[in-house]
């Protein structure tokens, strides 16, 4: 059979196969959400521009800047474990551009009473995803712990401090009189002794993956870019030859609470498939 699959489609289907085998079920966006549905969580969205349009019924709608929020909206029972994956187009203005683009995005969400194994599974899937996309190239998954950072970021300069952390801007952190431990976390790449500061579970996890995946899994605190929504592990995946992160995710209990699901846990990641096309050029 000759389906003329594009690179984006090819990777999307390979990933759909991987996720569904792992027991994740496909989530489809049946409808568009109202703009105000997203306006409430603007800083969770990666692009500040949301494509808005008006329905004939007069409501101001938004064209899918994100899928996670819609998945969350459909969670009723928080005592049961929900494992979804999706394969949708999202609509964003790429950084530096001035027009909306249709971006094929795939991802998974694991929501409910999370155990350590669930998180382990998600990270394993993230690494498998990177491996598939890299196809022989080098790749790495950076990970850090948002909760740890939150405990060290203080005062009204919190925002600026976090920005500096994401930019590995140590001199900036010094100027802002950031906590010495935070600076140390920022300074030392793949800082393994930092693990000692973690809670046991996380430490175990990180150790596990460091041993399991070696160079492909790294501790890097510049990964933490949001403390309102993310609380536990956060991670970001890079593939050699792609100038930006192709995968990003983490544990977002904070977001769940903000959306009315207090006490519920959630972890997942999204893959930006619009980048894979560039790999051909190399």
């Amino acid at each position, binding site marked *: 059979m000759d389906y003329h699959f594009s690179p984006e489609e090819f990777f999307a289907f390979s990933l759909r196969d991987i996720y569904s085998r792992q027991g994740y079920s496909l989530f489809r966006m049946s409808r568009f959400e109202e703009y105000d549905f997203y306006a409430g969580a603007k800083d969770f969205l990666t692009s500040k521009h949301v494509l808005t349009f008006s329905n004939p019924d007069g409501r101001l709608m938004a064209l899918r800047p994100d899928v996670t929020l819609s998945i969350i909206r459909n969670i009723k029972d928080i005592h049961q474990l929900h494992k979804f994956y999706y394969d949708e187009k999202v609509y964003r203005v790429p950084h530096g551009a001035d027009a909306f683009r249709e971006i094929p995005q795939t991802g998974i969400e694991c929501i409910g009473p999370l155990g350590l194994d669930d998180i382990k599974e998600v990270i394993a899937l993230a690494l498998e995803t990177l491996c598939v996309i890299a196809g022989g190239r080098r790749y790495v998954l950076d990970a850090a712990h948002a909760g740890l950072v939150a405990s060290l970021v203080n005062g009204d300069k919190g925002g600026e401090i976090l920005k500096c952390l994401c930019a590995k801007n140590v001199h*900036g952190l010094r100027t802002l009189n950031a906590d010495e431990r935070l600076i140390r976390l920022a300074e030392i790449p793949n800082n393994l002794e930092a693990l000692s500061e973690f809670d046991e579970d996380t430490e175990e996890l990180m150790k596990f993956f460091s041993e399991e995946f070696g160079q492909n899994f790294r501790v890097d605190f510049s990964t933490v870019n949001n403390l309102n929504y993310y609380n536990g592990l956060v991670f970001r995946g*890079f593939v050699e030859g792609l100038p930006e992160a192709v995968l990003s995710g983490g544990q977002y209990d904070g977001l769940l609470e903000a959306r009315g699901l207090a006490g519920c846990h959630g972890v997942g990641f999204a893959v930006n498939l619009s980048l894979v096309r560039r790999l051909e050029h190399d």
Partner: protein
Amino acid sequence: MINIAFPKGRLGKKVYALFEKAGFSWPGMTDDNRKLVFTHGDMRAFWVKPFDVPVYVERGTADIGVAGKDILLERSPDVYELLDLKAGACSMAVAAPQGFRDNSSDTLRVATEFPNIARKYFASQGRDIDIITLRGSLELAPILGLSDVIVDIVETGTTLRENNLCVIDRFQSLSARLIANKSSYKFKEDVISMIIRRLAVD
């Protein structure tokens, strides 16, 4: 192979000197020729306009580069800012003609080379403004009545004084920074760290 983007102009010269001092140099790089790219060992360097450095680095065309903090604030690229090179220290400020008083009834006309920085600054003041974006010679704008005030880089302030302008608010200190593409950093960390270590020594 690692690619390094240097900013053309005065700041660039200062910065390149720092690299030489740290033991990195590219033959012919400072000569006045038409050559654009200079390779030495597995390091490739090139001069680009100061405003363009973040573009080259963010898109991974350059693995690292040097840019003024003013330009980083104006463009806010998604890169790592690994080192403050201290070179070209100065500050971003609002300046106006001597004895200027802001009667907030009318919209304030602001001339600047940094519209985003200016917009952000006045938004934080809750002040309605009209931005007039210029490429340089900002001092002229208020003198000739093109704008009420300017938002510009100020070093000593001499130029301002000579034109009967005075600083109203120095709100941001600036200097040259070493930036790196986030992905490059993952896969060329050893080299990049080495460069930083050597540059940082003083």
